[in-house]
């Protein structure tokens, strides 16, 4: 449809999934002109897997995206039909917001965001090639219809479209997800770049017709009465709230699956990609955990008006008749109709160790990769990478250095460092246990950690920054106020805490740290505090709880930061550094660490190697200075 040459974009983004949309919006927030290329306009904002956003680790990522003024959190809030804060009764650092989302509402909210964004052009078409200059710099993309889109930087967010194969039993078909064509030509072009490629697999469950399910005898799970939203800008749900149902597999289900294992693509040896350990197919579960006679299934509604149910927990690559048989053995699903069969998909991914911390392909200026193509799984992981890739792509055309997201400051930093330093062996998903500074990286303080950084980078709007600054000041003022309140043991006991009668007098702030401190009682006791102050006091309580525990972490973080400040010159020849074993040289060359801290985290690196590397950095700096 476009036969003219577009030369007037700063950034072109291929793919309008979660990584692509987040990237496009972020680049536009920084004030540049962006083209977002997608097969079909209707693909924008599609949730191709389960209808949920957030969770443990993942919810933290969404909060961080929101703190950087990204769109995923705002869109998810608008589409949410059930809010649940996971681990609500555990420590604040491991509480993860999660929502069930209405697919249609999600897509509508995402489309509205994209369409209302100034300087953002959505272009329908199939990208078949990358445009390159003689020196290898990527300068845009070519479409199937011959049109060319020229841009300062290109971000590929093409998901599982690289050589993907779908499996239902022994039936195979080429394609990224149901109904989407695979970009074979583009895939070949990317494979030609000489990047290391790996193969992964993932699966989906069959989708069921809601009115064919008997919910009457099933356990219900309601959302939180007091919902926690993703966006720091939102305080209450937009859509009506619903409950979900839970059912279980049983011995009969397992018999059907066991009797048909050889007909599964996974077990028939037809798939060679590595699947995620944390999201096994039902075939996997039955084989690997043979002693369990039942597995949990969440029946997630796809939306308020949708007639589809996503049975979370039974992804499969068994043939159609077996899927139907085992589904019907399950309580409540005796008469369930399958609307869309479950399938497994295997696909190529690019080894992310070939990327810089700005997600640029090393040695290929102008080309950034984000999302599933880098070996990750999940909407949230994809969106966060889209944001990082966009910020750094924009900075690259401005001639500025990449922004470093530190492991000690954000889950985004943990993910980028894990991907670029350690690579992936299975689809990479965020867990809170991946963050060694977990107590400091909380969902509730994502704004404090990242909004100032986002503002400095230019991806945070003035309104967001103003709101953040006001909240920041209000928190500081509230802390001072609480610290000025003295609560003797007698009062503390009256407030319901379990302190001894001769316990020391505590300030209001210190009292927040007590095991059974009730924020509402503190508010009621301190004159001039009202229920409106509740969220501020709760936030301070989270800080107070961990204050003494993170001392050791802060020390470590300081050391990590000192080593992060030591950047390794890009042209440093690792092979010319004395005292490094050939093995270490090849490891350094493969990962191309950007800082001393990153080098030290590479598997197998010895303290001696770090010192030798440090000496080489210092030598190089001295030479550069003279």
């Amino acid at each position, binding site marked *: 449809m476009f036969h003219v040459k577009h030369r007037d974009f700063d950034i072109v983004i291929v793919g309008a999934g979660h990584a692509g949309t987040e990237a496009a919006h972020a680049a536009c927030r920084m004030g540049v002109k962006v083209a977002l290329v997608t097969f079909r306009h209707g693909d924008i904002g599609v949730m191709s897997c389960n209808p949920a956003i957030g969770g443990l680790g993942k919810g933290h990522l969404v909060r961080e995206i929101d703190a950087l003024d990204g769109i995923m959190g705002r869109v998810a809030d608008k589409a949410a039909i059930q809010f649940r804060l*996971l681990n609500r009764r555990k420590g604040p650092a491991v509480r993860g917001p999660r929502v069930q989302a209405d697919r249609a509402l999600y897509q509508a909210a995402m489309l509205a965001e994209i369409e209302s964004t100034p300087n953002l052009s959505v272009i329908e078409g199939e990208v078949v090639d990358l445009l390159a200059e003689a020196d290898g710099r990527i300068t845009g993309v070519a479409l199937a219809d011959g049109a060319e889109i020229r841009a300062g930087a290109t971000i590929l967010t093409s998901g599982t479209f690289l050589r993907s194969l779908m499996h239902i039993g022994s039936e195979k078909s080429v394609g990224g997800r149901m109904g989407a064509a695979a970009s074979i030509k583009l895939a070949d072009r990317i494979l030609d770049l000489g990047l290391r490629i790996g193969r992964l697999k993932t699966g989906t469950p069959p989708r069921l017709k809601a009115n064919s399910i008997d919910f009457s005898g099933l356990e219900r799970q309601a959302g939180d009465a007091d919902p926690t939203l993703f966006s720091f800008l939102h305080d209450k749900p937009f859509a009506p709230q619903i409950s979900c149902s839970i059912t279980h597999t049983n011995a009969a289900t397992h018999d059907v699956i066991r009797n048909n294992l050889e007909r599964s693509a996974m077990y028939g040896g037809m798939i060679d990609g590595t699947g995620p350990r944390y999201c096994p197919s039902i075939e996997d579960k039955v084989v690997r955990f043979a002693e369990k006679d039942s597995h949990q299934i969440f029946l997630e509604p796809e939306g308020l008006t949708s007639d589809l149910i996503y049975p979370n927990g039974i992804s499969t690559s068994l043939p159609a008749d077996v899927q139907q048989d085992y589904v019907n053995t399950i309580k409540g699903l005796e008469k369930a109709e399958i609307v869309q069969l479950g399938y497994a998909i295997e696909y190529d991914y690019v080894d992310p160790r070939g990327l810089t911390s700005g997600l640029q392909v090393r040695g290929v200026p102008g080309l950034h990769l984000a999302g599933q193509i880098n070996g990750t799984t999940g909407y949230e992981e994809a969106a966060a990478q889209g944001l990082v890739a966009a910020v750094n792509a924009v900075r690259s055309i401005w001639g500025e250095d990449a922004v470093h997201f530190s492991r000690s400051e954000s889950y985004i930093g943990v993910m980028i460092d894990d991907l670029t330093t350690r690579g992936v062996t299975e689809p990479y998903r965020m867990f809170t246990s991946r963050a060694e500074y977990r107590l400091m990286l909380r969902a509730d303080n994502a704004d404090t950690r990242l909004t100032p950084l986002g503002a400095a980078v230019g991806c945070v709007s003035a309104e967001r920054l103003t709101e953040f600054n006001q909240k920041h000041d209000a928190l500081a003022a509230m802390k001072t106020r609480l610290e000025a309140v003295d609560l003797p043991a007698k009062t503390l006991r009256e407030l319901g805490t379990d302190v001894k009668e001769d316990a020391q007098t505590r300030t209001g702030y210190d009292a927040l740290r007590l095991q059974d401190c009730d924020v509402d009682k503190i508010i009621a006791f301190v004159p001039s505090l009202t229920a409106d102050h509740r969220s501020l006091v709760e936030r301070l309580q989270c800080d107070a709880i961990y204050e003494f525990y993170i001392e050791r972490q802060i020390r470590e973080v300081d050391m990590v930061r000192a080593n992060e400040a030591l950047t390794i010159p890009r042209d440093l020849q690792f092979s010319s550094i004395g005292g490094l074993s050939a093995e270490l040289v090849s490891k350094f060359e493969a990962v191309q660490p950007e800082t001393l801290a990153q080098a030290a985290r590479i598997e197998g690196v010895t303290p001696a190697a770090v010192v030798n590397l*440090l000496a080489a950095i210092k030598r190089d700096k001295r030479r550069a200075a003279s």
Partner: protein
Amino acid sequence: MEDTIFALATAQGKAGVAIVRISGSRALDVLESLGAKAPPPRGSRLTLLRDADGEILDHALTLFFAEGASFTGENVVELHLHGSVAVVRAVLRTLGNGGIARMAEPGEFTRRALMNGQLDLTQVQGLGDVIEAETEGQRKHAMRVMGGEVAERIGRWRRDLVRAIALTEATIDFADEDVPEDVSHEVRALVTKTRDAIDQELTTAGGVARLKSGFEVALIGAPNAGKSTLLNALTKSDAAIVTDVAGTTRDIVEVRLDINGLPVTLLDTAGLRETDDKVERIGVERALARATRADMRILLYEDDIPPLWPIDKHADDMIVRTKGDLSGDHDAISAHDGRGLNELLAKIGERLSCRIADTGLISTERDQIALRAALSDLDTVLANLDFDDPDLIALRLRDAATSLQGIIGGVDVEQILDEVFSSFCIGK
């Protein structure tokens, strides 16, 4: 701000003077915590060092080098101590427990000197090699020690800790899935096992402590089996009374001797027999109790048929026939003509040396400090297991693993996740 660190700068062992170096912004605070006043920069002061309870550690010469004019470029305090193993140990332990400074990593002083520009690059060239040698030496030492029983023990700590962390992490990261809500029972069992093993390692198997206090070897056997005679022959002294009246030795006679350079206390115990004599019966009971506590037991007998062990036999224990000059048995020893005595001494020496090698793993003060830190973390976990949130429990378990890192290696998040995924069926 970097941590303040300390380490013994001179070689381990007996020497005229031992120097402990402390580097970092809080070096002077460390000195003050020992009850000493700071000397002027580049000056020295002779002063008493005391531990936290005010007990005197040593009368030491202290030196102070101010920031920018020291080896590392940071504030540096040197403690010139009397070169006794006990004094050095006590001082290092006091510093480690003080909480202001921590034990330096291998090569850390030099590394700081480099970071702060106190060394020029030509001096740095060889530094990597030095550190490599140091860590390689440690690795080899560990490998040697870890060849057998110790490797198994360490492997068990590692597995148990990884599992305890994995259980805790599973309740955090997979709270919404088919994971048991309450794992505290198994975590408690695993942590208790590990902390007890570490405690045991620290209290009974400290190689350095053993070298100082020595080993006890108990001679046991029926009356007149020749225990006292053997003791005298071995010690070439008249420390034990030797008579031919059965039941003469009623209390325990101790003699110290040196075997293969190891301090060994030989215990001559009362002959073991049923008796109506009240005093002798107490002697027999004591003999059995003491022999049980000893590091090694040698059961002596005179007749053709070896007796049954009166108490539990341990792997290193020996059974030896005496009075070979009378019986003509070639395997028997004789205190009278000296046959087999040197061989017996050699065997005792060999078996005890093995134990030193085996416990050498934590013979360094650094390892002991690491073990004590881990022990304290694990004790905190146990004390708070019932009411702490799992994020705090996981934090302390990981801290414990970090402390043990030098011995059991770092515990990687992938190993923890492996354990989670192999234990629980997770996945919606």
